[in-house]
């Protein structure tokens, strides 16, 4: 039975939708178009949505960062483009083989698999992984499919713990029955299916240490919550998992980070997406996520003044400032999604007090404090930031 009044599971809005044939069809369409161009004596090209800050905007209505419609055209017959044109096709052919054979490769494997010396030259098709990674991102943008859908995965980071049952291929398991470490989130989560979800909400935790603490205190069981440890900035796998749990299972998402600019940025990425992956916001961002802490108010409220740390850098009113943390906070204050009273107040307060506070600082009270008092109190009272 859910204890919480403020946090309640909602009805699902998206359905599980992974379909490998979609990727294959797209790849063939592009290949055919190139072939038709060259047969017709036209300079073949790819239209690739431009990356970078110039081509992203904040969608006020859906409250996510989205990619604009600026395209860059990559021609074959252009000295500056030819190499990348060739690389794009190489990766496309590779993806086609991966998906049709139902194999997955890491970004590094994809790099090595396609790297070779071009016959008759001293040039390699790829000289560095820094050449192949952007091509893969280009393909995501161009075809509107996730890297994970192309069976290309990044290193895994983050884990989950809680009473949910997941089907991963032929395996089916409850993530609260895998020991204290929970279940590590893989690079790609597209193919996962949620068989049973017996939790009321998901608590996204920045540090592994805090997640471990909560598991030890049996917080997931007592509060009927799923713990998702991001281990710093959330990986794509974790963000996609959060997105899917929210939209496919209706789980409310509550984010618990350090009270500092980096922690708030982690929250912002989960919620609105990032500039770099703006084209994936529809699949990665969860604008309905809420923030539980740490907040600047917590310092006063729970008497944590003596466990704060000074912000790094020079404050804005001092000579040479603002720098480092101060600068970062001021930048965050400009984000459209932080344009509300509560967040502006928090950020201003941080600058004024000149301090930051870590999740672990709560251990100053007692080891059980965070699990028994801090989190249940704030979450059940709905004391969350938007």
């Amino acid at each position: 039975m859910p204890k919480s009044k403020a946090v309640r599971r909602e009805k699902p809005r998206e359905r599980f939708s992974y379909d490998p044939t979609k990727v294959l069809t797209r790849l063939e369409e592009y290949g055919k178009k190139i072939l038709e161009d060259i047969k017709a004596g036209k300079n073949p090209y790819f239209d690739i949505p431009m990356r970078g800050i110039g081509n992203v905007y904040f969608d006020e209505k859906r409250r996510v960062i989205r990619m604009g419609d600026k395209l860059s055209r990559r021609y074959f017959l252009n000295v500056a483009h030819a190499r990348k044109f060739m690389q794009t096709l190489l990766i496309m052919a590779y993806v086609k083989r991966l998906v049709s054979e139902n194999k997955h490769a890491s970004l590094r494997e994809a790099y090595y698999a396609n790297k070779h010396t071009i016959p008759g030259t001293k040039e390699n098709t790829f000289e560095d992984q820094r050449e192949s990674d952007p091509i893969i991102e280009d393909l995501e943008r161009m075809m509107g499919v996730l890297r994970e859908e192309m069976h290309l995965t990044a290193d895994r980071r983050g884990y989950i713990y809680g009473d949910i049952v997941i089907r991963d291929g032929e395996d089916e398991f409850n993530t609260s029955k895998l020991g204290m470490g929970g279940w590590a989130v893989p690079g790609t989560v597209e193919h996962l299916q949620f068989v049973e979800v017996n939790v009321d909400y998901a608590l996204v935790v920045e540090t592994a240490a805090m997640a471990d603490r909560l598991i030890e205190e049996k917080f997931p069981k007592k509060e009927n919550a799923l713990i998702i440890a991001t281990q710093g900035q959330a990986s794509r796998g974790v963000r996609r998992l959060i997105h899917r749990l929210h939209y496919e299972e209706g789980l409310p998402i509550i984010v618990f980070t350090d009270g500092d600019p980096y922690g708030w940025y982690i929250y912002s990425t989960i919620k609105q997406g990032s500039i770099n992956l703006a084209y994936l916001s529809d699949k990665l961002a969860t604008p309905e996520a809420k923030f539980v802490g740490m907040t600047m108010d917590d310092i006063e409220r729970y008497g944590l003044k003596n466990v704060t740390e000074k912000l790094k850098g020079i404050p804005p009113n001092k000579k040479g400032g603002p720098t480092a943390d101060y600068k970062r906070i001021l930048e965050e204050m400009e984000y459209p999604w932080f344009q509300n009273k509560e967040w502006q107040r928090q950020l201003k307060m941080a600058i004024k007090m000149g301090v930051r506070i870590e999740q672990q600082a709560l251990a100053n009270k007692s080891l059980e404090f965070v699990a028994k008092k801090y989190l249940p109190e704030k979450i059940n009272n709905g004391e969350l930031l938007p």
Partner: protein
Amino acid sequence: MAEANQLFKEFKIQSVSEFFRRNAAMLGYTGKIRSLTTVIHEAVTNSLDACEEAGILPYVRVEIEELGREHYKVIIEDNGPGIPEKYITHVFGKMLAGTKAHRNIQSRGQQGIGISGAVMFAQITSGKATRVITSTGDDKIIEAWVKIDVDRNEGKIVKKEKHPNPKGWRGTRIELEVKNVRYVRSKQGVYWYLKLTAIANPHAHIELIEPDGRLIVFPRSSEDVPEPPVEMKPHPRGVLTDDVYRMAKKTRRSSVKRFLVGEFSRISDKKIDELVEYIAALRLIKTEDDKNVQEQLYERLMKGEVKAVLRSFRGYTKVVKQVAKLMEKPPEKLSWHEAEEIVEAFKYMKFLAPPTHGLRPIGEENIEKGLTNILKPEFVTAVTRSPKVYSGGIPFQVEVGLAYGGEIPGGFELLRYANRVPLLFDAGSCVTTLAARSVDWRRYKVDDLDRAPLVLMINVISVHVPYTGTGKQSIANVEEIQNEIRLAIMDAARRLQTYLSGKHRRLHQAKRRRTFEKYVPEIARALSVLTGEPEEEVKNYFLSYIEGHFAAKEAGGAEEVSENA
């Protein structure tokens, strides 16, 4: 104070050999390497000059045999006109004798000291006579051993033999034995000298046998014997008092007037009348006491206001008549002072520029042939400027050749010539070097001159090349000459620039094309995986597309060129 008798105890008349020993540097005999080059130079220039005058295509063979440490036998053989028996002693034995020294004519050598200097050098280093074998192509071959009587400055034939000449051989072969010299393949050695000579004389076939037996051939690339230079009368602006004085003593003309009109260029009867007025004016000006007035009069004279200057003196007609009388006297009676007056007047007078028909440039076509033949470059061009005048009256002409790339190694090379004779020494102070360095080569697409595979040859032609010293290896920095050289270089460099930009464009296109072509196999394989189309076919689509694109570009490029042309 020492007695004069005491002082004169040491007085001795210096013998020619003594002079020669002390002044060897003046004649080019300094240093073991250079001395050998000088010997060869004297013989080879004689051969080339002689062939040219006789209208023969020269064949010159140089052989150097090592006899011991710094001890060589040098053999130079040509197919020239040969030397008549009675002139052998004069040619080889007497210094300052020759067929050209007394004539105003462009030639490779100038003072006629050359080959006799070499004979002398051989004699004083090895003690051996020079062996001369020559025939004018008649029924006999003369073989003579020549020495120089150093005290009397006279040639002496030590031994002479006559041989029959059944095959009608014609030419001259001389053998000199020299010590204190060294054969080295350096930029100042014989090899380099002959190579440079071959470049400037494409009509000559030159062979060299080095001491180690190696035969090097610089073959002929032109069949045209250059026209022999013609004698030119001196221009009044280029003569000294001594020239006029001595010429007057020697002339067979009846009067000073006839002598001046007959033996100088650009002097007519009318000019003599003018000259009379100028001399008279100068005499009168010298009588003026007021220095300021004198200065003013000189200035007006310089402006050509000779009549006005004369009129400003009372009784000037008397002086004019006196001077006019001078013109009628026999030239051998001309005094030094009078000669001085004539030369001074020349300085104030205006004359037509000197005739230039005596200058014999190599010619653009022959320079190109010479450079191509010897250096095997990928690009060559030459510029022969029209004759100009320096110091008011000495005609000269400049020509340059530029060779680029091909077998030319990197590093700028300047080949200097005066009247076709290679200059190997004192490059630093030479006007040719200064002019070449003063050009901004980057403007002509030569970005790094010191690394460019570029050879620049410069030939300065004149009856009187203004050398910086007696070594005759460096041309003085005369402004008019430097300007002409610069203009010639820039003209040639512009053609090089046109060539290089065309080449760069073609290279650039080929490189671009290669950029695309190299990716085609990769692209074809990938597209074949994506579409199922056979790899080979995809490849051909791409290759023919590239082909078409560059063919169109080429056509476009050609149009551009024709528009410019």
